[in-house]
């Protein structure tokens, strides 16, 4: 009864991270594991998944997840330059139609259509958007929203590129392994590549443009040139996703410009937490399988994405990823008072 020792629970937000942030020489095995585990484990799992799923329905879902993750990454990259796009479908559709068209009309093999669609598509999208770069904020979003919808109208009314029927019986991938691993490697490459790039000097300039474009201009940097570069990079990723999907489906139609390819990556990125790239990936890898489970809902799925978007914006504005990282680095201990 005599001892009057009380404890208070204390929560430390950046436990081991605080120790490892500035220390470059890690000798402690636990610390190495602590840092590596969250990076290596998901990647390893992603690479193993095609073996575990052994083809079939869920492999398809995995492939879709990768495609949407690519689009979400591309959205997130643009958002980190302050360009809020509402038209990832533009990139997707342009990539899809270029690779489909080249394959259909010129009988080009995949090894040619994929790179041409990626680079050519990115170039085309950059040209289309370059005039809007002068304007900030909402204006850019509006233009990106209507461009893909207008393109879909255009193809339908002019009856070009297969019109409403689309281009059929395109060349498939040599095997589904190629397709799925191409997609997975692209996701992993973009995820870690973007995370690295945004912390490089080039990335600092891009983030600077988002935070305060005047200071960047006063620093003698042509912000439009850098924004165009950012769009080119994001466009390449989006177009690559479109081209992959085209050959996977062996079909490309107006649906490539559909709102789905805008809203799902957007919902994924917002749910996962914009700005970290990992968040966008996690978000889509949650949403796409979820929407497959909810296939029974049919058309209501789009509405569901809308609801998820709103809910995520209101209740979890930082996003899942930031929440998870915070919890991962957090630990609690008892302190004597």
């Amino acid at each position: 009864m005599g001892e009057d020792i009380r404890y208070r629970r204390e929560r430390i937000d950046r436990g081991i991270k605080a120790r490892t942030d500035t220390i470059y020489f890690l000798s402690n095995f636990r610390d190495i594991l602590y840092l590596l585990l969250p990076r290596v484990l998901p990647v390893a799992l992603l690479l193993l998944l095609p073996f575990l799923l052994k083809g079939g329905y869920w492999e398809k879902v995995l492939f879709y997840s990768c495609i949407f993750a690519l689009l979400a990454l591309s959205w997130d990259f643009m958002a980190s330059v302050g360009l809020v796009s509402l038209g990832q479908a533009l990139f997707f559709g342009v990539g899809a139609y270029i690779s489909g068209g080249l394959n259909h009309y010129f009988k080009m093999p995949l090894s040619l259509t994929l790179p041409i669609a990626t680079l050519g598509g990115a170039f085309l999208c950059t040209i289309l958007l370059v005039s809007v770069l002068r304007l900030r904020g909402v204006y850019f979003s509006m233009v990106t929203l209507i461009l893909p919808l207008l393109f879909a109208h255009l193809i339908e009314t002019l009856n070009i590129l297969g019109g409403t029927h689309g281009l059929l019986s395109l060349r498939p991938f040599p095997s589904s392994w190629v397709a799925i691993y191409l997609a997975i490697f692209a996701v992993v490459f973009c995820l870690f590549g973007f995370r690295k790039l945004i912390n490089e000097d080039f990335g600092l300039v891009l983030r600077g443009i988002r935070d305060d474009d005047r200071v960047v201009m006063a620093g003698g940097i042509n912000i439009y040139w850098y924004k165009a570069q950012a769009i080119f990079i994001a466009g390449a990723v989006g177009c690559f996703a479109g081209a992959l999907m085209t050959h996977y489906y062996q079909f490309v139609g107006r649906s490539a410009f559909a709102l789905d390819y805008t809203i799902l990556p957007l919902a994924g990125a917002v749910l996962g937490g914009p700005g970290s790239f990992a968040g966008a990936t996690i978000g889509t890898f949650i949403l796409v399988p979820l929407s497959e489970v909810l296939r029974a809902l049919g058309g209501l799925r789009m509405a569901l994405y809308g609801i998820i978007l709103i809910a995520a914006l209101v209740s979890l504005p930082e996003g899942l990823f930031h929440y998870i990282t915070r919890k991962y680095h957090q630990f609690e201990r008892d302190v004597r008072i």
Partner: protein
Amino acid sequence: MEILIYGITNSITLALMAIGFSLTFGISGLPNFAHGAFYLLGGILTWIFIHQLGLPFFFSAILSILVVGVLGFILYWGLMLRLRGLAINEVIATLAAAIVIIEVLRYLGFSGFTYVLPEFVKGSIPIGNVWLDYQRIILVGIGIALIIFLYLFTHRTRIGLAFRAIAQNERTAISLGIDSDWTAALSLAFGSALAVIAGLAILPLGSIDTEMGYDILIYALAVGIVGGLESVPGIVLASFILGFAQILVATFFKAQWLTVITLAAIIFILAIKPSGIFGKYKELEERV
């Protein structure tokens, strides 16, 4: 003559579609991407009121304008207020709201020939050598009346002046005792109600299709981008440019070229004057 008449009706139709969006954006800087969804919702609500509840047309129309107006108001207090100031999130949230409304309506199957709104007055009269139905004449009348009303409203009434004050300088307006949230919510409500009025005037010319929810938004944005988003004269001018261009193309080429013209106009305008013909969206011309 034909071109003139169809051009005018087409232009006024476009202006009607765009004006609600532009009003909200001009006042509170809120891009109401749910504009098209409200247009659609207004039409369908009116249909429900008439056919399911058996209310008279005029009463149903007023009721659905009110309901959607209130919905716009709720959208602001329930959602936008929490996200205010973050342009990204405002855009995403209204677009999400639009998708929820449109897709739910689509799921419920409000599409097709059964869903037709009654015309105000049936029949048509000849003007020159063109037979013009009364509905289109009324539509032109409503359009012109709305534009004049809006002008008077924003320049003469108390709320209208508060609207313009907020649009010009929010902080100063707040310090002079204008509640910016209240006016922003009202502007969203007004914009939504205008969307329904446009719908009631335009929808009787065809049947209701849920796809319209997106199409109307595209047209509103296209007109806004060409004319300058927040400027009413810009909207009117842009509607006439786009409206006549479309009709000219449709008469001399093919009707399919309509969207091509819209797209071309947008890209052309963006290339020469990104902020639109009357746009005051300043690129750099602000005080540092």
